[in-house]
């Protein structure tokens, strides 16, 4: 809606107000206030003159929403009636099937709840009372329910309520002997395939293992060499320390002999064998 149209509406309404008030004064006060509220709720502000700086607000089509509400109320009434009838008949109420339901099929994998261990889920504040809505636990999208343990969750997924919500009828196709035969064959083939894969992967594993062994040995060799190097360096260092004293650690007269030997080209008396 453009701003100009709003202005027009406001003017028109303002006029309507002026005209309307004397008429409603003649009527009872309650109906007058009701009509004023209704009018102002529809198009203008409660103070008779709409503010001009609220154009950014969303404009609601009130008629559309009224129609929606009417539909919803009708549906709810119908459901209430069906529930009541089911209760009178001593049965449990389920949403009626509309013919679009699919057959229920068996799960093809176990639900692994262990993978949830250690995960963190954000939960809205104020959640966590009862099962309704999303809160901490096992959440069912279709039914908007949260369960506190996996057993409850599993029982819920087996329930008729859940099946209706995900559009399943709770009926299972009966298999024929041919289907059973085909399934056995399929499973057997899969098993054989796995076995073949296993053989290949065993050889591969052996190769990988060999490689790993080689690496490990290399690592050991490197470490040994490093340690040797270090020892050697330390020894040389020790020898150096013996000969190269700083001036500050010299004690008068004590190192004369060492100095002399260093000047002559050897470090000390003792074995000449290389260590």
């Amino acid at each position: 809606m453009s701003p100009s149209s709003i202005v027009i509406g406001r003017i028109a309404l303002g006029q309507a107000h002026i005209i309307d008030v004397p008429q409603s004064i003649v009527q009872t006060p309650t109906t007058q206030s009701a009509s004023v509220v209704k009018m102002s709720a529809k198009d203008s502000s409660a103070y008779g003159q709409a503010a001009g700086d609220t154009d950014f607000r969303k404009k609601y089509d009130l008629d559309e929403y009224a129609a929606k509400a009417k539909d919803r109320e009708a549906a709810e009434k119908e459901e209430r009636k069906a529930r009541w009838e089911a209760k009178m008949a001593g049965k449990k109420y389920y949403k009626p099937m509309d013919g679009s339901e699919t057959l229920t099929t068996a799960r093809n994998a176990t639900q692994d709840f262990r993978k949830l261990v250690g995960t963190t889920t954000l939960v809205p504040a104020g959640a966590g009372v009862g099962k309704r809505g999303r809160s901490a636990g096992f959440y069912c999208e279709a039914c908007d329910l949260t369960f506190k343990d996996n057993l409850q969750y599993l029982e819920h997924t087996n329930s008729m309520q859940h099946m209706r919500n995900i559009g399943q009828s709770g009926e299972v196709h009966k298999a024929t002997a041919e289907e059973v035969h085909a399934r056995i064959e399929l499973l057997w083939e899969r098993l054989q395939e796995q076995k073949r894969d296993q053989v290949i992967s065993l050889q591969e594993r052996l190769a990988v293992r060999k490689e790993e062994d080689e690496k490990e040995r290399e690592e050991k060799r490197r470490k040994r060499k490093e340690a040797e190097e270090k020892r050697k360096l330390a020894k040389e260092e020790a020898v150096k320390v013996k000969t190269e004293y700083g001036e500050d650690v010299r004690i008068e007269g004590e190192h004369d002999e060492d100095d002399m030997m260093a000047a002559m080209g050897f470090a000390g008396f003792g074995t000449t064998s290389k260590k």
Partner: protein
Amino acid sequence: MSKSEYHRADERRFLDERGSSGPLAPNGLNPATIMEKAVRERIVDSYFYKEQCFAVNEADIVDRVVEHVDFIGGVYGTVQKPTPFLCLAFKLLQLAPSDAIIDEYLSFGGEKFKYLRALALFYIRLTRQDKDVYTLLEPFLEDRRKLRRKGRAGTSLMYMDVFVDDLLTKDRVCSTSLWKMRKRDILEDLELLEPRVSPLGDIEDLLDEMDEVDGNGEVRNGDGNHTDGDDDGSSEGEVRSRRWRKSSADRLSPQGGDSMDIDGPDDRRRSSGERSP
């Protein structure tokens, strides 16, 4: 079960009706009460049943057996947890598969997956008529594959032929009371069954041969009657073999097998095919 072309996904209606409106098993028993109530409730309460036996049909049973069944047994452990084997047997009672499907389980699937065969054998014993039980089960007395069995006390080794023999002769297997069948010789007298031919040959010939050999430890048993002393299914494999030897000795003695050394040192493996009627 009420609709012909669909199964119900859960067991609720099956258990609620308790056979009042559903079809009976071919042997006239109510499938909902074949297993005992305590066991039934344990099964329905078990996590495996709730998760893996929901919305399963006859073909999915094969999946489940291949994936989850690696031992037979009834309830095990101190909490008496039902085995997947027992859960699936219960599911089969609900599904009530046809003879053609049972045959697939037994022969085509059974060759490939031994636990599938064991399950089908167990199911047949629970639901089929006595003469069908004998004719369907006896060929598998020659199946000598190993089975693992879990009982309350622990795991033990078992063989397919021993399992079949238990099904034919015992009255309690896998935490389930088996219904009382007529004995084989009665059915033979009624001419419902042909006399059984043992894969080892004629029993008289065997006995003569044994007399000639005069107490060779290798040749064991070979009796045709089935006065079985075993009465409780909760026996464990460790004590079982001993007792089997004892009971077979009991059985053999009136038939002139006095010279047989049944407790021979090489008696590590029970021979198949002879114990059953």
